[in-house]
């Protein structure tokens, strides 16, 4: 469990981090390190340079900015789990954060690191999709914003450029009458999601005006279940409609299979967890 040798750089500013990233060809950004360090130790990843951005104040903090919840990329899962602002505005984010790893992981691992890593079984991608988050990145040519929908491009792949740093996540605060939930069936060893389902429903007089449902763990990347969303939008929020809607949970994606869940079982779990999430978002 010994990584290959690397040069460690501690960036004192975002600009320095960017400069280092662009100076060195074979560099990786290090924040909480909870995905990167195991990969280094298993020698699955052998970068020549590590640029530590874990202490950059610019990446810290959770705040509300004109109807948007802004979470710094360097915010830990634990900070999100305990944030009153998050609990009030988009409760499922706090709910999900509390289900990540264990206390030690939550206190060190960061949301930005998790998103940039894009593990297909990580929790955050489903939440970003359901919340229609915008992911802000900074590159040599300045800042740009990528919608969550465009950000996750494949198995451990994102739209983040090699010369860019993920800086913050911007989540539109949903209108009144919106409820959210994140429900997760854990892989028992790693406690990543075998199926994680994020649901967000805005209702008027018991009718679903707007439904957002997204999954992680099911396919090679997180995805929005538009079949469920369409089936429920405009319908009464009741058990029968939810049950009918969730049948399409795993449709249109290549469902993964492993020791813990075959394709068939995982597809079944997707339906079960969609029902749980939609029912819990009441």
């Amino acid at each position: 469990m010994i990584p290959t040798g690397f040069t460690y750089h501690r960036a004192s500013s975002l600009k320095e981090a960017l400069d280092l990233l662009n100076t060195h060809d074979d560099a990786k950004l290090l924040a909480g390190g909870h995905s990167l360090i195991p990969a280094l130790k298993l020698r699955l990843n052998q970068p020549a340079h590590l640029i530590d951005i874990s202490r950059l104040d610019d990446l810290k903090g959770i705040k509300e900015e004109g109807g948007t919840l802004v979470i710094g990329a360097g915010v830990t899962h634990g900070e999100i789990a305990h944030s009153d602002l998050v609990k009030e505005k988009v409760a499922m984010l706090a709910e999900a954060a509390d289900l990540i790893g264990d206390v030690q992981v939550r206190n060190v691992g960061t949301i930005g690191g998790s998103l940039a890593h894009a593990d297909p079984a990580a929790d955050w991608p489903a939440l970003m999709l359901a919340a229609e988050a915008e992911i802000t990145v900074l590159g040599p040519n300045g800042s740009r914003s990528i919608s969550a929908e465009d950000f996750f491009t494949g198995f451990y792949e994102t739209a983040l450029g090699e010369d860019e740093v993920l800086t913050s996540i911007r989540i539109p605060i949903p209108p009144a009458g919106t409820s959210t939930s994140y429900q997760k069936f854990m892989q028992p060893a790693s406690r990543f999601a075998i199926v994680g389902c994020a649901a967000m429903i805005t209702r008027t007089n018991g009718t679903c005006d707007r439904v957002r449902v997204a999954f992680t763990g099911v396919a090679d990347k997180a995805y929005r279940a538009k079949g469920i969303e369409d089936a429920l939008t405009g319908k009464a929020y009741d058990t029968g409609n939810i049950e009918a809607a969730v049948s399409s949970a795993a449709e249109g994606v290549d469902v993964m299979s492993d020791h813990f869940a075959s394709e068939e079982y995982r597809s079944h779990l997707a339906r079960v967890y969609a029902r749980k999430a939609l029912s819990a978002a009441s």
Partner: protein
Amino acid sequence: MTFIGKSVKRVEDQRFLTGKGRYTDDIVLPGMTYAYILRSPYAHAKILSINTSKAEAMDGVVKIFTGKDIAAAGINGVPCGWQVNFKNGDTMKEPPHPLLVADKARYAGDGVAMIIAESKEAARDAADMVDVEYEELDAVTNAADAVADGKPLVHDDAPNNMCFDWELGNPIDEVNAAMSAADHITSLEFTNQRVIPNAMEPRAAIGQYEDHSGKYTLHTTSQNPHLTRLLMCAFVLGVPEHKVRVVAPDVGGGFGSKIFHYAEEALVIWASKQLNRPVKWTSDRSEAFLTDAHGRDHISKAEMGFDKDGNILALRVKTHANLGAYLSTFAPCVPTWLHGTLLQGLYTTPKINVDVTGVFTHTTPVDAYRGAGRPEATYLLERLLDKAALEMKRDPAELRLQNFIPAFDGVKEEGYMTQVALQYDSGNYHGVLERALEMVGYEDFRKEQAAARDEGRLLGIGFSTYIEACGIAPSAVVGALGARAGLYESAQVRVQPTGKVSVYSGSHSHGQGHETTFAQVVADKLGIPLEDVEIVHGDSEAVAFGMGTYGSRSLAVGGSAIVRSIEKVLEKGAQIAAHKLEANPEDLEYAGGKWTVKGTDKSVAFGDVALTAYVPHDYPQGLEPGMDFSSFYDPANFTYPFGAHIAIVEVDKDTGKVSLKRFIAVDDVGNVINPMIVDGQIHGGLAQGIGQALFEGAIYDEYGQLTNGSYMDYTMPRADDLPSFEVDRQVTPCPHNPLGVKGAGEAGCIGSTPAVVNAVMDALAPFGIKDLEMPMTPERVWRTMNS
């Protein structure tokens, strides 16, 4: 002052909890080098060539040894410590187990080269540059498959991959006849899956050689340093035993996996002489998954015959035991003498025959793992009992109570002779089950279960009643059964001139709390403060000899040896005290740390007597000075702890996930010295046994690759998977050792697994499901509900 029976806080915890423990990997010696073992990535492959030149040229690399170097040095492989013969009398197949393989790798993890460098980083980097050319060959991993004709052979001289075949009990004809007369036969085919020990501390070893004295020191993560020294000196390296010191300092758990002598221990010792520098090797976690001896892995068919009233008539068992690629130290003993002999269980079964085939496969060696054979026997019996109850529409608790051996104390009533070579020491089997039924509120539970079923919820209750043979073991008995070592224990009690006491024990604590429990025994017997007693263990230079800690033997055998030495101390002390008190020794009584002339207030304290023994100015004529006694205690019999465990589970219909709601354990481990430590042992054992039932299991693919060798993939039980355990005790003292103790280290792990599985089966009974393999993972349960 009494300490026996008190929950004294563990004296060792101060150092463990404040990070002051000193483990093998903590030790840094001047001039130390670091070894990395390059291992075969293939389960079965010819080694065509190894080129180390690029690696040897790297900065910091000191030396690289390959299997050819080891062979050229004439070093024997790792020996096996137990011999089990074929039924026809032929000796078991015992192929060489080289320290590093030269020609062929036989499991993924087999050592191919040892890279020694100035730092562990340099050694690891150089390993990537060693160029090994392999020719991959077909592998076989399943023991029942491996014995078929035409399968790949692990060793050319072991046809059909058979190491031995073996049987025990009544002649098969008698068992078959009893089975034919049965009104009902319950049969079960199952795998007791392979589990990986996962001690918290990975294995490590440091070899150190002094050229001026020719002495070696091995620091190692061992449960029995003396046995490691004996095996390494006498069978592997041929170095003189008196020139070798083996130290097992603080050791962070073992669960059996650190009993065995491993190749790396001999390698670092041998290499330290070649380099004349200390060599340290520390396993990483991935390596631990691949190379620590695994546990269980039986494929069995078992049948139990009953008469029309539900009395057990016969038991017939056929097992294929996977031994892995090589014979680990005690591998042949586990599926035979530690498994077959326990198939009487708690029942009066009059006819039993067990037939076991030991099989080589292209997998990590398999050996003793917490319980070692006894969990396999218990699982088999207890699944049969619950399944039979279901089939015969009998209550599973009642069916057990009906078939239990009646209570006997082993003193007034004889010990119980089984059909499978053992004589149980003492038991009251009805007592533990009746107490467990009372604790669980059995009748109320059945009502709750019925109500839950009406709501569509799946609740289940499962029973397990077990017996184990512990306190291993009478040397003459195990010698007759194939052990190549005695299984006594030694203890030296040294009373210091000031009356403080140092105890040197051949037992080895790797988490069990010997420093506390043993000190309680000594303080209690001598009537002195606990802090006046120091327990020393784990160093072959300090301790006369030792057989180590496993098989729940430390207190029953090692503790008894301490008691024997204390008796000698008190006998000599009485002579000195009598002299000082001008009385006859037989007129003295010893209590509260002093000798008193009976019926008077004339007394002399333990400390005064100790000082007199070392300053013998006014002293009994002819008596030697000093107060230092050794004893070797060889037990008269095994000890037989037993108990009753009950699990209550709920199965989620949607997902198949099993939630353990309650777990009741009533164990009878004989007398108890420290209830808190015994409870801790029971709790840990329960977690481990529950882990096997619900979570754990090594998964090999068709190529012989271990596909879940990491904590991302191999599920260990965690605190939030477990309920708060409800434990209670019954005490039936062991009649044949001076403490009346039976051993508690394995009980939890032996009893709990079938209780949980039976509970899941009970929950699933409405589906007509009677069998399901472990681990009972959500998908497995869901599939069976939906098939």
